[in-house]
């Protein structure tokens, strides 16, 4: 493990596949950070695979309460035909947990794409044009940002669907509710970057050459201002899952007959706990926790690895480490630590 080859490798341009976002991060990582990144990637991968292959993995449909042998028993303990038991309504818990991953992915994708789209446009326009438009948008964004996000989502859920609806209606309602929560975040980031970039010489020269404002915004500023977005995306995806589950828990999710939703199932499981029935709540809850942990680990690792001050070094002088939040430390302390991470 000598230090020279590393430096040489970095100064040379790597092949394209080594420069892909996650792969390049993986190669940069070391020790505890690599452990965190890998754990996060594995959990996120499992989540995505479950979502994609839900029809193949789940033994039953999410709203199926009977098969050829008759109705499913209600509140059956885990084991046998129903791997994780059944709910009071006779739904198969395992199938609903698996289908729930699909709902979660759909909502995240729709929500994050919409909030990026709207947030980026508003941020660009607001930052570039400035003036009273900028001032109003900033005050509104700050007001919404300071407010409890779950309440914003609840208000939006009322506005959109009056509460509940079909699969796509429900997904759209949940996604739009989450979008409204996230727009201020994207707006702030993009606006700040736009204002910084507006003063750069290349924007000035574009103006001199006679480029239109729209061209400057879409070409010159947009490309530079959106570099931090993948990071916010991963961090927000986990928050989106929590907001969706919160909405579902309050009964603002998606009807159980139109899709499976973890938060909704947890709400229904609440009444079961007093009689000691644990499997209806524990499994959807674990699914939420594992998914959020996975996404958070990926997001945080990428954040740390993007920042040279936080990045763990392959070889650090013992006892001398930078002010980082992710551990670096000496080689000796890394081995047990990363083992701890992956075992969790």
């Amino acid at each position: 493990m000598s230090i020279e080859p590393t430096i040489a490798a970095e100064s040379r341009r790597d092949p394209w596949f080594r420069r892909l976002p996650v792969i390049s991060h993986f190669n940069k990582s070391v020790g505890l950070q690599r452990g965190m990144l890998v754990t996060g990637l594995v959990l996120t991968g499992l989540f995505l695979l479950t979502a994609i292959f839900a029809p193949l993995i789940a033994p039953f449909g999410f709203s199926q309460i009977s098969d050829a042998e008759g109705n499913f028993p209600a509140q059956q303990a885990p084991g046998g035909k129903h791997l994780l038991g059944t709910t009071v309504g006779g739904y198969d818990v395992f199938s609903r947990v698996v289908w729930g991953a699909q709902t979660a992915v759909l909502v995240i994708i729709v929500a994050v794409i919409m909030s990026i789209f709207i947030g980026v446009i508003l941020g660009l326009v607001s930052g570039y044009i400035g003036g009273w438009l900028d001032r109003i948008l900033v005050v509104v964004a700050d007001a919404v940002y300071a407010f409890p996000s779950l309440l914003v989502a609840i208000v939006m859920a009322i506005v959109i669907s009056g509460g509940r609806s079909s699969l796509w209606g429900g997904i759209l309602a949940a996604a739009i509710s989450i979008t409204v929560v996230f727009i201020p975040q994207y707006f702030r980031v993009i606006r700040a970057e736009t204002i910084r970039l507006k003063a750069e010489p290349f924007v000035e020269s574009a103006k001199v050459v006679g480029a239109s404002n729209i061209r400057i915004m879409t070409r010159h500023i947009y490309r530079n201002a959106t570099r931090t977005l993948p990071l916010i995306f991963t961090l927000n995806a986990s928050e989106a899952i929590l907001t969706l589950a919160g909405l579902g828990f309050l009964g603002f999710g998606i009807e159980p007959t139109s899709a499976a939703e973890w938060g909704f199932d947890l709400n229904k499981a609440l009444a079961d706990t007093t009689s000691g029935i644990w499997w209806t709540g524990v499994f959807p809850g674990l699914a939420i926790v594992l998914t959020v942990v996975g996404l958070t680990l990926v997001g945080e690792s990428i954040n740390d690895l993007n920042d040279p001050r936080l990045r763990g070094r392959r070889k650090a002088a013992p006892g001398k480490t930078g002010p980082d939040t992710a551990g670096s430390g000496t080689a000796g302390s890394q081995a047990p630590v990363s083992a701890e991470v992956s075992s969790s």
Partner: protein
Amino acid sequence: MTTLIEAPPSDADGLLPTKKKASGGGLGQYILIRFLLIFPTIFILVTLVFFLMRITGDPITAALGGRLPPEQLAERIHAAGYDRPIFVQYFEYLGQLITGNFGTTLSDNRPVSEMLTTYGAATLELSINALLVALLVGIPLGMIAAHRRDKAADAVLRIFAILCYATPVFFAGLLLKLTFAVWLGWLPVAGRAKTSTELALTALQAPTGIYWLDSLRSGNMAALGDVFAHAVLPAVALGLLTAGIFLRLVRTNVIGTLGKDYVEAGRSRGVSEFRLVTKHAYKPALIPIITVMGLQIAVMLGGAVLTETTFEWKGLGFQLATYLTARDFVAVQGIVVLLAVIVAVTNFIVDIVAALIDPRVRY
């Protein structure tokens, strides 16, 4: 509330006359500007909530639509004035808000302001309990993590912090309920107190609605014990959500200050490691914690809605969920507006406290 807001300027003006000249801006001016900023924030939220809730139609149709014949429905809408132009209603609503009149709930027909004060006390109690748990868990563990940096203890604590963040409060509540209330039977399953205790406390003259305060005042120790037993699980469920954030914050900041020269100087004079972490490195790390605490109030209020539903804790959040199911949007609007005011005021107080502690914060 007013004393809290108005006290700092006069106090600070008396204390820091010389500093004011040096820094140019001045604390009094900062507080004034910051105070004035509360109003647009509240105004915007009230306006947004009002118009958003009205896009879907009037509250009476939402609450009773389908259950009443159309003529009766129209009659009630007319009686309540919901058939007038939206802007007339909006300005009337604003006028009512200023005088503290939030309207009357549709589902149980009681003044919204009375509902807010009754259930607000319960939510306040839950939030204080949870904040205590968060601070008691988060700060010491954060110090340990900073002290044992990159060791096994640190890694375990960081995973704990991520788990705290990743676990939705209602799932944490469900697990706690299952373990401590159902399986072990140590603590009650739900509610704020036994019915007998609640009756004893409401018999009190001018009850505050904050149960542990009321039971202390009545000197009823059995009631206090009962209230405490009921408070533990909800407080832990909601507190852990924030504890993880405090833990990480303390860890990062203590690590930052532990590397400073004055800590090194303390160490060379033979100050114990324990004292270095808990006194020398910890004090400067407090400032960001106070700022984040303000931001956490919003998170906590959101969490309180879910915690209260989980534990049937009869507070604003529990009522919010009930009114939502009943489609009583007048009540929902009242709760949302109150929470907006609370968030705006706490953010203001936190900013002022941060400015009093650290002069660099003021503009």
